[in-house]
């Protein structure tokens, strides 16, 4: 049995806009990394997809504190699960879908081999900018209990308005 939850999200953080501003202007900006240390960053960075990477790509946590625009890390990131390097990226060409351009869908799976249930309450995306881990998205979601030997898959769809 697979439970599927879909929702629209308004989870972009100030960090994302700062990175976008840097990309737009070509002028570096100061951004707090996940350790809340201010870093000088220019432009965007890519999502690393290596196995076990916990400082970039889609990340998950147990925290349920409401999102604020200045969040710089997950409240309580889960590292006990296997972080699968799966990064499904599609479409290869942005496509018009109604009043949006679908830019990309990416997903990542997390295997619970901890021996106990882990409750997922928050998810987000970290990118690497100038070698630093920067949180650009954070969502608090309805609790998802992931039993031992179960897998949770998280997918983000990015779009722009037209």
């Amino acid at each position, binding site marked *: 049995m*697979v*439970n*599927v*939850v*879909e929702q*629209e*999200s*308004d*989870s*972009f*953080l*100030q960090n994302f*806009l*700062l990175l*976008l*501003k840097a*990309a*737009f*202007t*070509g*002028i570096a900006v100061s951004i707090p990394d996940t350790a809340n240390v201010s870093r000088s*960053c*220019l432009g*965007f*960075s*890519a*999502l*690393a997809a290596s196995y076990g990477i916990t400082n970039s790509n889609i990340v998950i946590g147990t925290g349920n504190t409401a999102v604020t*625009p*200045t969040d710089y890390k997950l409240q309580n990131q889960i590292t006990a699960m296997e972080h699968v390097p799966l*990064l499904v*990226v599609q479409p290869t*060409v*942005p496509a*018009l879908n109604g*009043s*949006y*351009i679908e*830019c*990309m869908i*990416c997903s990542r799976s997390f295997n619970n081999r901890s021996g106990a249930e882990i409750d997922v309450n928050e998810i987000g995306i970290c990118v*690497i*900018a100038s070698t630093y881990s920067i949180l650009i*998205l954070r*969502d608090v979601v309805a609790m*998802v209990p*992931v*039993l031992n*030997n*179960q897998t*949770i*898959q*998280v*997918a*983000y769809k*990015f*779009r*722009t*308005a*037209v």
Partner: protein
Amino acid sequence: MGDTMRLTVGVGLNIRTRIIDTEDGVIFDKTDKAHSFVNNFAYFLKHCLDGIGNSDGRSITNAAVPVAHQGWYSYSGCCGNYAGMDALGGAGDVTRGIVVGSSATPFAIAQYNMQALIGHGNGSGQLYYAATPTTVVPVFSDPNITFLVSRDFTNNYSTPIVVREIGIRGNPVYAQGNVYTATMQYCRDVVPEMTVGPAQVLNVQYILRTVM
């Protein structure tokens, strides 16, 4: 067995246009939701997030250029990866920043250029392009996080000029500050006709926001 969570996030634009008369002050002020991102911006955002170099972006001349340098190209090095848009134009620069045109040709996501660019200058059929500044930091205004880009266009000629389209251009940055020489169009909006009279200033603001 397991769970799947699918979340959708996005970015959008608002656009504000004002006409300022030297004697009467602001005589036109309108803010609308923009409908303007073209494929180039989508490619940019995709590349930034998936880290996969692509050669799908199009310059304003739709020129064929080497794959390794076209569009936004991923770079891996000691200082990390990034790509950029470099859309902060100085005074008179029609290749970067906000630009205006006279065509009412409907928007299409595959467009890669203004349809009828109004050139920079003080002569007939021209507007004087000031620099394109941005706000200092993104601003949070619940539920949006935004930052604003603005540019003034002054009619220094003796006859009115009509503006029907607005866009943003820049030079794609493909690796560690290497700016590709092509000019890229990131968005284009067809707006209600605006007439900029002699000695009047058209101010255009794009407000990039995180919530649609």
